[in-house]
């Protein structure tokens, strides 16, 4: 339930951040977390829901890569 993916904040404009997720830059809402540039966040449905350590983010990323194929197969934003 509720797939989320980690990414690194590279820029912050108000409540929106540019986040590097596996070398893709995404706009992410950061209203639910206290985050700064350089932090790793857990992103779900366009919104950061948690701040993670770098190690934790990297740990989760490998599994997300495995899931990527299935997510693309289903053209869905899992929730």
């Amino acid at each position: 339930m509720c797939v989320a993916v980690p990414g690194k904040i590279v820029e912050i404009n108000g409540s929106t951040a540019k986040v590097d997720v596996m070398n893709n830059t995404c706009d992410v809402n950061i209203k639910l977390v206290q985050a700064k540039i350089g932090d790793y966040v857990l992103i779900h449905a366009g919104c950061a829901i948690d701040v993670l350590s770098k190690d934790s983010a990297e740990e989760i990323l490998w599994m997300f890569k495995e899931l990527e194929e299935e997510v693309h197969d289903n053209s869905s934003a899992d929730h």
Partner: protein
Amino acid sequence: MITLQQITRELKEYDGREIKIMEVCGTHTSSIFKNGIRSLISPKIKLISGPGCPVCVTPSVYVDKLVDISLKENHCVLTFGDMMKVKGNEHSLTEAAAIGGKVKVVYSPLDAVKIATEDANTQYVFAAVGFETTTPIYGILIDEIIKKQISNLKILTSLKTITPALTYICENEKNIDAFIAPGHVSVIIGCDAYKELAEKYHKPFVVAGFEGEHILAAVYEIFLQLKENKACMKNMYISAVSDKGNMQALSVINQYFEPKDDFWRGIGVIEKSSLRLKPEYFQYDAGSDFDEYKESPPKGCKCKEVILGRISPAECPLFAKQCTPLSAVGPCMVSAEGACGIWYKNRGRE
């Protein structure tokens, strides 16, 4: 310090009474397959899937309503992609789109703000489906609608909460011995949410991350607790999950939503198991209350038994025969997070 080898040896060689552990998160189900966890543990330790996919438990009348809205003049439904193929009592949103319904797939509820602002002549309705992970994001959406005075955007909610469903399972499915609690829902609600359940029903609840080692460690923790006749909540995903959860997210949920009884497809009504907009925000609701929950499960479909952990997806007579992701009979085969869909993609690796 115990090594991973010792853990796997102990779990592999176990030959006592059958232990049933339910994971209630589709991502855990996927990880169990990808890491071959079943092959690392004794066949006496069963890992079974529970009601962890919001799409799978969304009532068919809810889909019917979305279909009706999509077919109304100057209306458009906004939805995540995995809701598209789920059937209502007659049609899915994909079928509605094929007969002229207006449906747009988005990746975030917050995309709806831009879409609605750019097209003021269309009434947009967001299909707000999800568990507690997603609900605060719908709260932020309502916040944006109010602040930006957007008059052509509402939400239709089918927002489920996980602890009432776990309570239902503890009450009604006595043969489940323990639970691997969901990872990302727990980020929001915090691991303390499972303490009372663990104590009241005397079943271990372990919050786990998604790596193979994490799941194996969670299984081992459950194994040890059961061996010692203990039953407590243990958080083994401390890098992401805190005791109390994400307080900011919980505050957004509490600001806009309140608990209500709700219908779960395949299960029925579970007390206080959903979150609906509070009365003061009803103007942003597209009609989420239903008088009647008419359900006509597809003939032969065993999704109910799968959701409640009574059978594995492969035990359904339709599995991988009449029911496949390309031609799904039941909702659990439709979603990327559904147990049947995950089992189908990994068939042969059970």
